[in-house]
């Protein structure tokens, strides 16, 4: 690997709205996308709640930032790892999550899924393969 390109992992373990970490970590991802590193996001523990579909903050007078996840594909951020056990523990399945996609220009802009559900053991290996892990 070129010494200038690193594998960056953004470790998301918290639910949205109760604290600002989910939103402000997404802001780092968006800015970071301009730096041409290999970027992945991991949703673990309560982090899986960040990408649950149907978020509606209209009664809270807080900004609903969930649409931003849908924009990640446009920023070439398309490796969103979701931990299976974290979903299971919370009674969630992939059908509860937003349908996040990206367009692969190498395959005629075919739409592909950005979310990859992986086991805890697989995620441990994925984390091991990273150069830098951001925690929020």
């Amino acid at each position, binding site marked *: 690997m070129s010494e200038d390109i690193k594998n*960056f992992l953004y470790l998301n373990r918290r639910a949205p709205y109760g604290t600002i970490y989910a939103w*402000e970590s997404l*802001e780092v991802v968006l*800015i*970071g996308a301009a*730096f041409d*590193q290999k970027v992945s996001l991991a949703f673990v523990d309560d982090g899986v709640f960040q990408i649950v579909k149907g978020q509606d903050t209209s009664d809270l007078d807080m900004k609903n930032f969930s649409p931003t996840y849908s924009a990640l594909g446009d920023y070439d951020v398309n490796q969103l790892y979701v931990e299976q056990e974290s979903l299971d523990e919370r009674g969630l399945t992939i059908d509860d999550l937003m349908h996040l996609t990206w367009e692969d220009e190498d395959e005629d802009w075919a739409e592909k899924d950005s979310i990859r559900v992986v086991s805890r053991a697989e995620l441990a290996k994925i984390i091991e393969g990273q150069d830098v892990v951001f*925690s*929020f």
Partner: protein
Amino acid sequence: MKFAIQINEGPYQHQASDSAYMFTKNALEKGHEIFRVFFYHDGVGNSTRLTSPPQDDRHVVNRWAELAEKHDLDMVVCVAAAQRRGVVDDGEAERNGKDATNIHPRFRISGLGQLVEAAIQSERLVVFGD
């Protein structure tokens, strides 16, 4: 080793800033390089010059400022997080129509790109949070 330090919490509320300070100080004493100290989320609160903690306890802001002065550290406060939380320098005061500033001169407000750059340029990113 070249370190980048990320601090996610404000002074006193959490121990994060203290732990980061101790780590940073020890790293410098061992001859390591601190590429940047980046303050994010409530961590931006570590940069205001207006704190008056009790005399018999550590002065978190000043301690960081003194360490930065001694070792010429780059202490960066995220602009978006600072705007949300009311940490203001001259530039931000003018841009956002504020009638005061509160940042300690040893810190500078800049963009999140500085955190990303620090992670790229350093050999180790160490995050202190809650």
